[in-house]
């Protein structure tokens, strides 16, 4: 049964994940580190990079899903790591456990080898933390939501949904 201990453990797990992301940013010199689930939902993030996080999560999850299909066509069980090199910004994408994907963005101030070192270690730990638990959440964000939501509990949907 879901109880307060479950909630507390889940939040603590996500704080541990957050610490791993922090390490990637601070010690590998990455611009940002994100954890998304296989369905494209953002779970946790670290770093100050300006980017559309929702779109990034969805695109990477879809791309990773497509890559998994390519692996299957080639007779591989999976491709667990991907890197994309740009002129100023680069991307490392890796599997973190069975249901999550780690995304690291980095620039010229660091190098792929260092990012891979920290990211792979973090992937392993994050996979261990989250695979032992079936609940996935996101740690607290400093950004307050801009919306002024209504109360769905009372059955009232936003007025802009009216034709």
């Amino acid at each position, binding site marked *: *049964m*879901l109880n*307060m201990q*479950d*909630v*507390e453990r*889940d*939040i603590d797990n*996500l*704080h541990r994940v957050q610490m791993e992301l922090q390490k990637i940013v601070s010690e590998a010199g990455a611009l940002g580190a994100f954890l998304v*689930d*296989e*369905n*494209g*939902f953002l*779970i946790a993030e670290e770093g100050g990079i300006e980017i*559309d996080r*929702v*779109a990034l999560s*969805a*695109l990477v999850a*879809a791309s990773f*899903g*497509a890559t998994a*299909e390519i692996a299957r066509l080639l007779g591989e069980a999976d491709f667990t790591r991907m890197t994309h090199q740009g002129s100023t910004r680069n991307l490392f994408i890796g599997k973190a456990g069975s249901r999550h994907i780690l995304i690291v963005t980095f620039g010229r101030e660091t190098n792929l080898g260092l990012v891979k070192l920290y990211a792979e270690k973090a992937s392993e730990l994050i996979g261990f933390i989250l695979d032992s638990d*079936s*609940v*996935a*959440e*996101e*740690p*607290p*964000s400093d950004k307050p*939501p*801009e*919306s*002024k*939501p*209504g*109360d*769905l*509990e009372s*059955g*009232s*949907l*936003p007025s*802009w*949904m*009216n*034709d």
Partner: protein
Amino acid sequence: MVVNFARREIMCKIVYYGPGLCGKTTNLQAIHLKVPENMRGNLTSVATKQDRTLFFDLLPLDIGKIKDFAVRLQLYTVPGQVYYNASRKIVLKGVDGVVFVADSQQGKMDENVESFKNLRENLRENGADPATIPLVLQYNKRDLAPVYEIEELNRGLNPHLNISYFESIANTGQGVFNTLKKITQMVVDDIKIKLEAADRAPAAKPVAAPTPAPAPVKPVAEPVAVAETPQPATVKTAAAEEPVTQEPEQATVRKGFWSRIAGWFKRTGK
């Protein structure tokens, strides 16, 4: 669905499905145009140079709260063309609700039926149950001629009239929000029931999505600007062949979970 206890967020995925050129992307564009900026994110499209959807379109929306949890929807489209099935299957992963957009134009029935069949196959292959997932039909392009009568479309896609259906002209926005409103209500009801079920079911977790109880049906109450097809009494099933009888709303739900969660957050300051 993902529940973020720490951030008090519930994230859900709604997918617009249907044959090529039926108007899925146009639906998202119409929604993007009308929704206030602080309630939506950017419309992201992975499209070909000819503006045909290659992988998906994505539009994030903030729609309100269940108790203290902000509910965030992610609206996706899939590429409609037959040979993009692998992409459709990827986009369908983890889906919480589906809008099936059918092309009303005469001559398109086979494509509609084939796509609807493909939807059910892909849901099954992804481990989802087409008979219980929230689903709404949208009969689009009603302004074109010649089009099928609504009865003909229902005969092909909704023979038992057990799925909610709406007429639309997506490129003018007509019917788009009635459809969105209905699927949102169904998904929200489904979430509430899943979470309450998780609370009372032994060893269940909110994200693990335990076997859902039938979702309550709440007809859209507000008056609408376009002609809307009257809704049948039973609407919550994707299986056109098998009508599902609704159970009384939350008849077996144990109360108190959300107040206990809220109390815990208050006490711990998390």
